[in-house]
């Protein structure tokens, strides 16, 4: 666009945003209607970064053309996107874009201590939207020559080098820099370019780092990410990562030089935008959020916690996905963990061949119910493992001295570096990615989320309908309110609210009683035994006043055995009372009992077509009739 006014300073009535993904470019048009922002239309087209097009703007044009056709307005000119100038209705007030095409942003990080500066560097890189290929540290257990070999074999887009608090160790920081210099890793893109290295460590080490790295690398220096042990200062490093992403990664990707001129704010890496969008949503709705995006190759998990929703963490499980990396899910989870979710007996050799065939033909979809159940079993494990990984990075700072007010926590045996993910405090769990967003029945998505994340107490469940979080994230940087409104009204499909008592129990014993005052004054009471799952229908947009009475040894958020009164939201599935157990959750060890339990839960949520299920799992209809 020709003129570049600051988006935030202007009245925005029409917003056009694209996300250039590795396979698909998605465009959305948002407009202000009657005082609120709503999604108007969307369009998509294949991404055109690779041959034969090798110009990302071709895919953007195709996606926007679909928006033009559906909206009956013009947004494209020969020069790019038309800036709106009143009268005709053509053009947009602002055009924004995100990108993960061409493999996204791939980084190596390094620090002195694995669980301190290297971990902070990893958080900085992940939060900036990168895939972290490796985190090298002085104490990571590898010998110098092994580290050098590893660094040499990586082809990152950039390196983030940290280490030492200000005024602390210089020797160890220099040691890591020497290893990087000796390894001379080459950048992923551009045969003749110098690899960018960001130094965000001990400021006293800067002259040494300059001397060691400046000739071989494009060296940038920013403030220390751990200036003192108790403080993590990720902002400057993240900002520099974004600058380099634009200067190096985007500038070398085909067509981005043009696209960068079209957009009015810098193009954001897609995952960074999603993270920003999640944070914005948490703040606007005043609730902690966990979001997950399960793709073909990777699974991203985002969490926003804290009193002011200041604790934001993003992790990428680079090799947990539903197609390209599906064999790795099998490898990491193990066959037993996958099979435990399948409600019929399976031949294991056949299962392994099926998984491999999905890997080599990643765009195929389950045609039979049997295939769908297997794929969703794999998804549960991919999600579970990604969440486990997330919890190891969503932690308080490690190695810090306790302050006096922490003495109580010390006495309760909590140590520094514990995860701050508190599932009881979680307000909303959002799933996205094909296997969740396109599950044939929404109850399947709800079950997958419950099984993988095991939320506790009262938690809203939702899926992102068409994955517009990236566009809403970049929009949040210029207009948080518009972003939050569209997120709430058009982006999410609300599945409902889950109620899960926490604590040990015995199968069949009373676990929880839920009394729901439904719209229209009707009251429903469900007595759910331990090990059971029940659904109380409550539509999207409806609210119900609940009285939740857990058994004496169980907790739903008010304390053990204490009644919780709470207003909850409905959804396409409704209220799900999940008394299957938390801390611990377990499936019966006996094969037959396990299959019976799985069928019971499927039936409780009406998750699959009963006629087909009966063919696959004889007796399912009987369970349904009994229920």
């Amino acid at each position, binding site marked *: 666009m020709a003129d570049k006014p600051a988006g935030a300073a202007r009245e925005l009535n029409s917003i056009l945003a694209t996300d250039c993904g590795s396979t698909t470019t998605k465009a959305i048009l948002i407009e202000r209607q009657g005082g609120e922002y709503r999604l108007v239309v969307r369009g998509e*087209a294949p991404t055109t970064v690779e041959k034969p097009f090798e110009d990302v703007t071709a895919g953007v044009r195709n996606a926007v053309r679909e928006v033009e056709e559906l909206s009956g307005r013009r947004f494209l000119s020969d020069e790019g996107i038309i800036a709106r100038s009143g009268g005709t209705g053509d053009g947009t007030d602002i055009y924004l874009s995100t990108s993960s095409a061409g493999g996204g942003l791939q980084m190596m990080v390094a620090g002195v201590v694995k669980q301190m500066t290297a971990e902070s560097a990893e958080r900085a890189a992940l939060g900036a939207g990168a895939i972290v290929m490796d985190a090298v540290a002085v104490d990571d257990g590898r010998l110098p020559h092994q580290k050098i070999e590893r660094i040499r074999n990586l082809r990152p887009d950039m390196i983030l080098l940290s280490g030492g608090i200000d005024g602390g160790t210089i020797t160890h920081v220099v040691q890591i820099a020497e290893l990087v210099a000796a390894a001379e890793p080459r950048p992923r893109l551009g045969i003749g370019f110098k690899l960018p290295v960001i130094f965000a460590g001990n400021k006293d080490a800067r002259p040494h780092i300059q001397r060691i790295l400046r000739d071989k690398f494009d060296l940038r220096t920013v403030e220390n990410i751990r200036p003192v042990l108790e403080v993590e200062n990720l902002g400057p490093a993240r900002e520099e990562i974004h600058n380099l992403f634009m200067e190096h990664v985007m500038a070398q990707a085909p067509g981005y030089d043009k696209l960068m001129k079209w957009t009015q704010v810098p193009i954001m890496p897609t995952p960074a935008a999603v993270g920003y969008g999640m944070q914005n949503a948490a703040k606007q709705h005043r609730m902690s959020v966990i979001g997950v995006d399960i793709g073909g190759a990777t699974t991203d998990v985002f969490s926003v916690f804290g009193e002011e929703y200041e604790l934001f963490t993003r992790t990428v499980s680079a090799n947990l996905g539903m197609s390209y990396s599906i064999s790795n899910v099998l490898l990491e989870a193990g066959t037993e963990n996958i099979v435990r979710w399948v409600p019929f007996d399976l031949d294991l050799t056949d299962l392994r061949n099926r998984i491999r065939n999905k890997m080599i033909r990643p765009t195929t979809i389950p045609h039979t119910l049997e295939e769908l159940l297997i794929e969703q079993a794999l998804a549960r494990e991919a999600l579970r493992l990604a969440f486990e990984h997330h919890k190891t990075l969503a932690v308080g700072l490690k190695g810090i001295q306790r302050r006096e007010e922490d003495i109580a926590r010390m006495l309760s045996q909590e140590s520094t570096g514990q995860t701050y993910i508190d599932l009881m405090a979680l307000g909303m769990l959002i799933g996205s990615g094909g296997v969740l967003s396109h599950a044939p029945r929404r109850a399947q998505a709800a079950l997958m989320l419950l099984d993988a994340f095991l939320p506790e107490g009262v938690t809203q469940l939702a899926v992102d309908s068409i994955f517009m979080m990236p566009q809403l994230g970049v929009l949040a940087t210029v207009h948080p309110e518009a972003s939050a409104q569209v997120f709430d009204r058009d982006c999410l499909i609300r599945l409902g609210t889950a109620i899960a008592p926490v604590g040990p129990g015995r199968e069949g014993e009373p676990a929880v009683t839920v009394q729901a005052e439904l719209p229209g004054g009707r009251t429903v009471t469900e007595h759910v035994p331990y090990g059971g799952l029940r659904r109380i229908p409550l539509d999207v947009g409806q609210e119900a006043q609940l009285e939740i009475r857990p058994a004496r040894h169980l907790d739903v958020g008010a304390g053990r055995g204490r009644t919780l009164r709470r207003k909850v939201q409905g959804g396409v599935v409704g209220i799900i009372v999940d008394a299957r157990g938390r801390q611990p959750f377990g499936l019966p060890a006996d094969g037959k009992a396990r299959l019976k339990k799985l069928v019971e839960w499927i039936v409780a949520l009406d998750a699959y077509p009963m006629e087909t299920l009966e063919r696959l799992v004889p007796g399912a209809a009987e369970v349904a009739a009994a229920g």
Partner: protein
Amino acid sequence: MAHAYTPGLKVTGYTVLEKVRRLPLKGEVLVQVGDEVEPSAIVARTSIPGDPETINAAHELACDPQEIPRHMLKQPGERVAAGEVIASYQAFFGLLKKRVVAPVDGTVEHVSEVTGRIILRRPPIPVEVRAYVRGRVKEVLPEEGVVIEARGAFVQGIFGVGGERQGTIRLLADSAEAVLDADAITPDCRGAVVIGGSLVTGAALRRAAEVGCAGVVAGGIIDRDLLEYLGYDIGVAITGHEDVGCTLIVTEGFGRIRMARRTFELLRALDGWEASINGATQIRAGVMRPELIVAGYRPPGITDGEVPASEGLVAGTPIRAIRDPYFGLLGEVVELPPELQPIETGARVRVLRARLEDGRTVTIPRANVEIIEG
């Protein structure tokens, strides 16, 4: 989206291929546009910096790191031979002698007075890029490599392991259904690219590596057999660098799956021809499939102007089902209903109606077929 189907693997008796042969670092291109090259011809070369060797000199000399530069006998930039003394330290009037010996041939690259380490760089490693296929140099990428144009038969597989190799095609299966077992692979298969039918067994694969076959091409492989052949499990679909005796190309997938008749018949016709093969597979953006190329082959009656182009998915297009319940079956598109249709899972998706080889007409999600490309 208009192209919601798998484009399909190319299997053709004659096509024009362009192969980019690129150096990992800038270097020297050794051929010119128009040159005819053989697969073994070196078309470009460079040298990559040798591996570094780190020596903890402060520890070996038992002195402070900042003293190391004073004790160096060789300075950064100087060459040293393995066994040569590069730093020494004497104390107490020569009673205490310590020295640092170069563990390898190389050049002193860096002496750190902060960490007390010396970094030696081993001699540069020469890297050569070969033509890989017989053809003509179409373009020179200055300092980086070349584009080679080859004309001939081209068969893409679905998955492979092992890198680039050349060998004579040797048909060992009498039909596309036949299983390739170990006893069919005899010592005279050394250097050959052997062709099986529906399956190569684990024993056959090991035997092929033992006798020195260049490669094996078959319809399918059992997952466990691949794991045993490699010695480890593959997590993500990025292959080509495996250290295996012979390259494997699977044309259909995992399990016993009859090789597509068209593929099998073409390989039968290529029996005795020299092939270039590569098992490298990468199934992410920039899809790379394993391949077999026979440059110089031209089926009777084909001229240069007759390289057929794919029309996409239309009635009459030959297809292969690539997922259960019809996995591996071949057929022909009968109808492409535009509306979304329900399938057994309950999902509503874009489908096609296809007549299978066994005479059945079935409905299949479009995402679950691939075009058999010619």
